[in-house]
Protein backbone atom coordinates (compact mmCIF):
# COMPACT_ATOMS: atom_id res chain seq x y z
CA UNK A 1 0.00 0.00 0.00
CA UNK A 2 1.61 3.23 -1.10
CA UNK A 3 1.16 6.31 1.04
CA UNK A 4 0.07 4.59 4.24
CA UNK A 5 2.23 3.58 7.17
CA UNK A 6 3.22 -0.10 7.52
CA UNK A 7 2.46 -1.63 10.91
CA UNK A 8 6.07 -2.77 11.00
CA UNK A 9 7.27 0.85 11.28
CA UNK A 10 4.80 1.64 14.05
CA UNK A 11 6.01 -1.38 16.02
CA UNK A 12 9.63 -0.43 15.35
CA UNK A 13 9.08 3.06 16.82
CA UNK A 14 7.20 1.53 19.73
CA UNK A 15 10.02 -0.94 20.38
CA UNK A 16 12.66 1.80 20.22
CA UNK A 17 10.75 3.97 22.72
CA UNK A 18 10.23 0.98 25.03
CA UNK A 19 13.96 0.16 24.93
CA UNK A 20 14.83 3.76 25.78
CA UNK A 21 12.36 3.56 28.66
CA UNK A 22 13.99 0.37 29.96
CA UNK A 23 17.44 1.98 29.69
CA UNK A 24 16.22 4.96 31.73
CA UNK A 25 14.54 2.79 34.36
CA UNK A 26 17.64 0.61 34.82
CA UNK A 27 20.43 3.19 34.58
CA UNK A 28 19.09 6.33 36.29
CA UNK A 29 19.21 6.80 40.05
CA UNK A 30 16.75 9.64 40.49
CA UNK A 31 13.37 8.13 41.40
CA UNK A 32 11.47 10.78 39.40
CA UNK A 33 13.47 9.99 36.27
CA UNK A 34 12.83 6.27 36.73
CA UNK A 35 9.13 7.08 36.98
CA UNK A 36 9.29 9.19 33.81
CA UNK A 37 10.93 6.25 32.01
CA UNK A 38 8.03 4.03 33.09
CA UNK A 39 5.57 6.57 31.65
CA UNK A 40 7.54 6.45 28.40
CA UNK A 41 7.27 2.64 28.30
CA UNK A 42 3.50 2.91 28.78
CA UNK A 43 3.31 5.29 25.83
CA UNK A 44 5.36 2.90 23.70
CA UNK A 45 2.86 0.14 24.52
CA UNK A 46 -0.01 2.52 23.71
CA UNK A 47 1.48 3.19 20.28
CA UNK A 48 1.70 -0.56 19.56
CA UNK A 49 -1.92 -1.05 20.69
CA UNK A 50 -3.16 1.81 18.48
CA UNK A 51 -1.14 0.49 15.53
CA UNK A 52 -2.67 -2.98 15.82
CA UNK A 53 -6.14 -1.53 16.39
CA UNK A 54 -5.89 0.54 13.20
CA UNK A 55 -4.41 -2.33 11.18
CA UNK A 56 -7.17 -4.71 12.27
CA UNK A 57 -9.85 -2.08 11.72
CA UNK A 58 -11.37 -2.08 15.23
CA UNK A 59 -11.82 0.55 17.93
CA UNK A 60 -10.80 -1.86 20.70
CA UNK A 61 -7.20 -0.65 20.66
CA UNK A 62 -8.31 2.90 21.36
CA UNK A 63 -10.59 1.77 24.20
CA UNK A 64 -7.72 -0.12 25.84
CA UNK A 65 -5.42 2.90 25.47
CA UNK A 66 -8.14 5.04 27.07
CA UNK A 67 -8.04 2.77 30.12
CA UNK A 68 -4.24 2.76 30.14
CA UNK A 69 -4.19 6.58 30.25
CA UNK A 70 -6.74 6.65 33.09
CA UNK A 71 -4.71 4.13 35.10
CA UNK A 72 -1.47 6.01 34.35
CA UNK A 73 -3.03 9.13 35.87
CA UNK A 74 -3.97 7.22 39.04
CA UNK A 75 -0.53 5.62 39.19
CA UNK A 76 1.24 8.97 38.78
CA UNK A 77 -0.68 10.59 41.61
CA UNK A 78 -0.03 7.72 44.05
CA UNK A 79 3.62 7.35 42.99
CA UNK A 80 4.35 11.03 43.41
CA UNK A 81 2.64 11.01 46.81
CA UNK A 82 4.97 8.15 47.81
CA UNK A 83 7.98 10.22 46.65
CA UNK A 84 6.81 13.23 48.69
CA UNK A 85 6.40 11.04 51.79
CA UNK A 86 9.78 9.39 51.13
CA UNK A 87 11.51 12.73 50.68
CA UNK A 88 10.08 13.94 53.97
CA UNK A 89 11.55 10.88 55.64
CA UNK A 90 14.98 10.60 54.04
CA UNK A 91 15.65 14.01 52.40
CA UNK A 92 16.56 12.27 49.12
CA UNK A 93 14.93 10.46 46.21
CA UNK A 94 18.16 8.85 45.01
CA UNK A 95 17.25 5.16 44.85
CA UNK A 96 20.77 4.05 45.79
CA UNK A 97 20.47 5.82 49.14
CA UNK A 98 17.04 4.46 50.00
CA UNK A 99 17.80 1.10 51.58
CA UNK A 100 15.43 0.94 54.53
CA UNK A 101 13.71 -2.20 53.19
CA UNK A 102 16.86 -3.79 51.81
CA UNK A 103 18.12 -6.01 54.63
Amino acid at each position, binding site marked *: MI*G*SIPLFDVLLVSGALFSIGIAGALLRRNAIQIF*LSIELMMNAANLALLGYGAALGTHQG*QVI*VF*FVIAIAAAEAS*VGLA*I*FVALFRHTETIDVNKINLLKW
Partner: protein
Amino acid sequence: MERLIFDAAALLAILFAGLMIALRDPVKSVLALVVSFFALAVCYVLVLAPFIAALQIIVYAGAILVLFLFVLMLLNVGPEKPDQDRRPIQTVLGSLAVVVFAGMLLGMLRASGSRLPALPEAVGVDALPDPAAIARLLFSDYLLHFEAVSVLLLTALVGAFVLARGEDAK
Protein backbone atom coordinates in the same frame (compact mmCIF):
# COMPACT_ATOMS: atom_id res chain seq x y z
CA MET B 1 3.12 12.79 2.77
CA GLU B 2 1.59 10.86 5.68
CA ARG B 3 4.65 8.69 5.69
CA LEU B 4 7.00 11.67 5.86
CA ILE B 5 5.16 13.28 8.78
CA PHE B 6 5.07 9.98 10.67
CA ASP B 7 8.80 9.47 10.20
CA ALA B 8 9.62 13.01 11.31
CA ALA B 9 7.35 12.83 14.37
CA ALA B 10 8.65 9.39 15.35
CA LEU B 11 12.23 10.56 14.99
CA LEU B 12 11.49 13.62 17.17
CA ALA B 13 9.79 11.43 19.79
CA ILE B 14 12.74 9.00 19.94
CA LEU B 15 15.28 11.84 19.97
CA PHE B 16 13.66 13.63 22.90
CA ALA B 17 13.06 10.36 24.74
CA GLY B 18 16.80 9.73 24.49
CA LEU B 19 17.44 13.26 25.70
CA MET B 20 15.06 12.60 28.60
CA ILE B 21 17.18 9.75 29.96
CA ALA B 22 20.49 11.47 29.11
CA LEU B 23 19.86 14.74 30.98
CA ARG B 24 20.89 14.85 34.62
CA ASP B 25 18.59 17.68 35.66
CA PRO B 26 15.13 16.14 36.32
CA VAL B 27 13.29 19.37 35.36
CA LYS B 28 14.89 19.37 31.89
CA SER B 29 14.12 15.66 31.72
CA VAL B 30 10.40 16.30 32.24
CA LEU B 31 10.41 19.08 29.62
CA ALA B 32 12.11 16.77 27.09
CA LEU B 33 9.43 14.16 27.76
CA VAL B 34 6.70 16.77 27.13
CA VAL B 35 8.16 17.39 23.65
CA SER B 36 8.41 13.63 23.10
CA PHE B 37 4.73 13.17 24.06
CA PHE B 38 3.63 15.96 21.70
CA ALA B 39 5.48 14.21 18.85
CA LEU B 40 3.86 10.93 19.90
CA ALA B 41 0.44 12.63 19.73
CA VAL B 42 1.19 13.41 16.06
CA CYS B 43 2.00 9.72 15.56
CA TYR B 44 -1.31 8.78 17.22
CA VAL B 45 -3.23 10.93 14.72
CA LEU B 46 -1.42 9.17 11.89
CA VAL B 47 -2.29 5.72 13.24
CA LEU B 48 -5.94 6.85 13.00
CA ALA B 49 -6.58 7.67 16.67
CA PRO B 50 -7.24 11.45 16.89
CA PHE B 51 -9.27 11.09 20.10
CA ILE B 52 -6.37 9.38 21.87
CA ALA B 53 -4.02 12.06 20.51
CA ALA B 54 -6.17 14.73 22.18
CA LEU B 55 -6.17 12.72 25.41
CA GLN B 56 -2.41 12.38 25.16
CA ILE B 57 -1.95 16.15 25.02
CA ILE B 58 -4.60 17.05 27.62
CA VAL B 59 -4.08 14.27 30.16
CA TYR B 60 -0.47 13.17 29.66
CA ALA B 61 1.43 16.29 28.62
CA GLY B 62 -1.05 18.65 30.28
CA ALA B 63 -1.86 17.01 33.61
CA ILE B 64 0.47 14.14 34.48
CA LEU B 65 3.75 15.77 33.46
CA VAL B 66 2.73 19.08 35.04
CA LEU B 67 2.12 17.11 38.23
CA PHE B 68 5.67 15.76 37.92
CA LEU B 69 7.02 19.29 37.51
CA PHE B 70 4.97 20.43 40.48
CA VAL B 71 6.44 17.73 42.74
CA LEU B 72 9.97 18.43 41.46
CA MET B 73 9.59 22.11 42.33
CA LEU B 74 8.10 21.19 45.70
CA LEU B 75 10.93 18.83 46.64
CA ASN B 76 13.57 21.09 45.08
CA VAL B 77 15.63 18.16 43.75
CA GLY B 78 18.89 19.18 42.11
CA PRO B 79 20.69 17.42 39.24
CA GLU B 80 22.13 13.97 39.86
CA LYS B 81 25.72 14.19 41.12
CA PRO B 82 27.95 12.31 38.68
CA ASP B 83 30.68 10.80 40.80
CA GLN B 84 29.33 9.70 44.15
CA ASP B 85 28.70 6.07 44.98
CA ARG B 86 29.38 4.52 41.59
CA ARG B 87 28.17 1.00 41.04
CA PRO B 88 29.98 -0.33 37.96
CA ILE B 89 28.51 -3.84 38.12
CA GLN B 90 24.97 -2.50 38.15
CA THR B 91 25.69 -0.16 35.25
CA VAL B 92 27.26 -2.92 33.15
CA LEU B 93 24.48 -5.40 33.89
CA GLY B 94 21.82 -2.76 33.25
CA SER B 95 23.33 -1.79 29.89
CA LEU B 96 23.64 -5.47 28.97
CA ALA B 97 19.98 -6.08 29.81
CA VAL B 98 18.92 -3.10 27.65
CA VAL B 99 20.99 -4.28 24.68
CA VAL B 100 19.74 -7.88 24.97
CA PHE B 101 16.12 -6.73 25.27
CA ALA B 102 16.37 -4.35 22.30
CA GLY B 103 18.06 -7.08 20.24
CA MET B 104 15.34 -9.61 21.09
CA LEU B 105 12.60 -7.13 20.20
CA LEU B 106 14.27 -6.30 16.89
CA GLY B 107 14.82 -9.97 16.10
CA MET B 108 11.18 -10.80 16.79
CA LEU B 109 9.99 -7.89 14.64
CA ARG B 110 12.25 -8.89 11.76
CA ALA B 111 11.08 -12.50 11.97
CA SER B 112 7.40 -11.57 11.67
CA GLY B 113 7.79 -8.28 9.80
CA SER B 114 6.79 -9.45 6.33
CA ARG B 115 3.50 -10.91 7.59
CA LEU B 116 2.32 -7.71 9.28
CA PRO B 117 -0.51 -5.85 7.55
CA ALA B 118 -0.33 -2.17 6.55
CA LEU B 119 -2.56 0.43 8.14
CA PRO B 120 -5.61 1.42 6.10
CA GLU B 121 -5.17 4.65 4.21
CA ALA B 122 -6.87 7.71 5.67
CA VAL B 123 -7.95 10.19 3.00
CA GLY B 124 -8.76 13.56 4.52
CA VAL B 125 -10.33 14.34 7.87
CA ASP B 126 -13.57 12.48 7.13
CA ALA B 127 -11.80 9.13 7.01
CA LEU B 128 -10.57 9.46 10.60
CA PRO B 129 -12.62 7.36 13.02
CA ASP B 130 -15.49 9.03 14.83
CA PRO B 131 -15.00 9.43 18.62
CA ALA B 132 -18.70 8.56 18.99
CA ALA B 133 -17.88 4.98 17.96
CA ILE B 134 -15.35 4.74 20.79
CA ALA B 135 -17.87 6.18 23.26
CA ARG B 136 -20.49 3.65 22.13
CA LEU B 137 -18.05 0.81 22.74
CA LEU B 138 -16.95 2.30 26.06
CA PHE B 139 -20.49 2.61 27.42
CA SER B 140 -21.75 -0.75 26.20
CA ASP B 141 -19.18 -3.57 26.06
CA TYR B 142 -16.71 -1.92 28.43
CA LEU B 143 -19.16 -0.33 30.88
CA LEU B 144 -18.05 -2.50 33.81
CA HIS B 145 -14.38 -1.66 33.15
CA PHE B 146 -15.26 2.02 32.86
CA GLU B 147 -16.96 1.98 36.27
CA ALA B 148 -14.05 0.02 37.76
CA VAL B 149 -11.68 2.74 36.53
CA SER B 150 -13.80 5.41 38.22
CA VAL B 151 -13.54 3.51 41.53
CA LEU B 152 -9.79 3.12 40.94
CA LEU B 153 -9.37 6.86 40.42
CA LEU B 154 -11.26 7.58 43.65
CA THR B 155 -9.06 5.08 45.51
CA ALA B 156 -5.92 6.69 44.07
CA LEU B 157 -7.18 10.12 45.13
CA VAL B 158 -7.75 9.00 48.73
CA GLY B 159 -4.49 7.02 48.77
CA ALA B 160 -2.43 9.96 47.49
CA PHE B 161 -4.03 12.21 50.09
CA VAL B 162 -3.28 9.82 52.95
CA LEU B 163 0.32 9.20 51.79
CA ALA B 164 1.26 12.84 51.25
CA ARG B 165 -0.52 14.21 54.33
CA GLY B 166 2.52 13.81 56.57
CA GLU B 167 3.07 12.79 60.16
CA ASP B 168 2.07 15.92 62.04
CA ALA B 169 -1.48 15.93 60.67
CA LYS B 170 -2.38 12.75 62.57
